[in-house]
């Protein structure tokens, strides 16, 4: 049993993968598979937040920015693919039929370029921002507020550039996804498998990072940044790495969100969307491996099932959730699991070490 312990998370990921990729498609209707795919996208973002916030202590309140980078890059490619070669997307024609395609759209006709942007854009943006903030030791609340300010700024910027980004109505009406027809159940199933597969891969990445030297340094930086500095490491670089990884995950989550949901708007990347991403992570347990992903999926499910039937109540519930979780369960639902596990007596070998 004791020898098995370090491998328990890996076994957990295996079980999670089997349930998500094997059982769920067999028992759920196409409608719910599509929804589950959407929750997977949120969960991918949440796994990154779990790394940056839970393990690294950086409360990223503007993860919508990176979600938006990936989502809009993907949406621009899908819009152009739908429009056809040398044509421009419909909404641009409606706005001004004679004007040409904006220059920054042109490269997105290329699928490979789009995929590269989805990964590279968040790396560039997060590196610049992270370098600027962490090197000057901006942290804690300052960091949280600045990242949220960035999300607000980006959302207003996108809202106001109607012809370039679709403005408030966003981008939608995609017909193809890299040659596959989106309005086809088999292709929708494929999209779900891609999103769920990426989620499992992200969990594996974070599991591996957590048990590496880097993971230990990240945890040490969260708990005693000065001591890490005195030991000769630069906390800025450690935090920057976690922040950039979280940003890339958010961007990939955003990129998968677009073909699965079929629309991206500034509301999905702004302040309240970013706060919703935090809510799932806080609920599940920010420092745990599975907590952020499962919490994000629960919030996603709550939003799509409650928000339509009971919109006001959903917001109250969400607000209450922030209050109750922070007051009584700062480590999220994962701490409840730990507490239950604590009641069950452990093996004798470990008891000796623990005292």
């Amino acid at each position, binding site marked *: 049993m004791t020898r098995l312990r370090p491998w328990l998370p890996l076994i957990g990921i295996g079980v999670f993968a089997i349930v998500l990729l094997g059982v769920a498609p067999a028992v759920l209707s196409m409608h719910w598979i599509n929804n589950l795919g959407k929750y997977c996208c949120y969960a991918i973002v949440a796994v990154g937040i779990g790394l940056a916030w839970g393990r690294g202590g950086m*409360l990223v309140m503007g993860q919508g920015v990176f979600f938006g980078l990936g989502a809009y890059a993907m949406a621009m490619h899908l819009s152009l693919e739908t429009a056809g070669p040398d044509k421009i997307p419909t909404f641009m024609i409606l706005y001004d039929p004679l004007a040409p395609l904006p220059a920054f759209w042109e490269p997105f006709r290329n699928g490979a370029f789009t995929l590269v942007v989805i990964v590279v854009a968040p790396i560039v943006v997060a590196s610049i*921002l992270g370098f*600027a*903030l962490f090197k*000057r*030791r*901006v*942290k*804690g*609340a*300052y960091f*949280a*507020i*600045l990242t*949220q*300010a*960035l999300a*607000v*700024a*980006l959302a*207003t*910027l996108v*809202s*106001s550039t109607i012809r370039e980004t679709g403005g408030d109505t966003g981008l939608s009406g995609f017909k193809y996804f890299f040659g596959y027809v989106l309005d086809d159940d088999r292709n929708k199933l494929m999209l779900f498998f891609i999103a769920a597969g990426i989620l499992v891969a992200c969990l594996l990445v974070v599991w591996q990072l957590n048990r590496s030297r880097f993971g230990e340094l990240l945890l040490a930086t969260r708990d005693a*940044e*000065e001591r890490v500095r005195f030991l000769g490491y630069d906390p800025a670089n450690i935090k920057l790495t976690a922040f950039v990884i979280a940003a890339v995950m958010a961007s990939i989550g955003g990129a998968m969100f677009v073909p699965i949901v079929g629309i991206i708007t500034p509301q999905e990347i702004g*302040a*309240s969307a970013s*706060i919703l991403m*935090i809510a799932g992570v*806080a609920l599940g347990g920010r420092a745990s491996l599975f907590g952020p992903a499962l919490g994000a999926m629960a919030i996603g499910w709550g939003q799509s099932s409650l928000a339509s039937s009971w919109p*006001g109540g959903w*917001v*109250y519930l*969400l*607000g*209450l*959730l*922030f*209050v109750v*979780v*922070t*007051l009584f369960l*700062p480590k999220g639902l994962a701490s409840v699991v730990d507490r239950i596990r604590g009641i069950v007596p452990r093996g004798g070998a470990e008891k000796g070490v623990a005292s």
Partner: protein
Amino acid sequence: MDALIPPLLNGTAQGALLLLAALGLSLTFGQMGVINMAHGEFIMAGAFVAYLTQLVIPSSDISIPVALPLAFIVAGILGLLLEVSILQWMYRRPLDTLLVTVGVSLILQQAALQIFPAQGVPVEKPGWLDGQIDVFGYGWPSRQLFTIVLAAVCVVALAAWLKYSPFGRRIRATVQNRDLAETLGVSTRRVDRLTFFVGSGLAGVAGVAASLIGGTNSQMGAQYIIPAFLVVVAGGIGQIKGAIIAAWVVGVALAFFAQWTTGSLAQVLAFVLVVVFLQLRPQGLFTVRTRGLA
């Protein structure tokens, strides 16, 4: 000169409103380490008080002066309730106060949405704010001048209260050394509550000013909270003089940027400005000197 004066005047007025929004925030953040994301909703509460006062007193000439102290009290009581019910359990956990108040802010926004119409309510401007005043040959709306005067009055009152009143002295004592202050007979619990009451009350006053300039609806708090925080952060936490300068600079910068580009790009540029500034002074414009490492 012709291109400079109008944005300078507009920016000053915008800065005054930002300062009003940031003043209470700076007090609760600086003196108590509480990051109150619901501060924007207290501003909203103040704006709705202005509207409700107007329903009782139809003449806006009188209703606005009446609404100012009322808004202070209503927002102050909201803040007090928040402190007593939730925040007192989480001092010294600043990031958690941020999360908790995000929840409170969502609840208050939704409540306002269900009580008042979604598109917002009109607040009549008093007749004595209709006119214009000539400044350097330019017509300056007296509404803007009113915001500036109001901000100035609040700043002076707050500074004097902190400096000369017995309560202010107790607040400063508590901030400097909580344990010692307690030993000397200061009830730090009462100091905490009073600080929160005054800080939140100032948001109510800002709300009345905001209702005369922008719209009054359930979303207005979200508009003010981030710029107000940027002002607090750039000015140095808990620093009134820092907040004044930062609010003015951000307000004027927004007005100038808005003249050259669109309003939303101006916001992005203002954000960049604050981040660049924090590169130069990570602790903000003015800081309390400590021997702490971080």
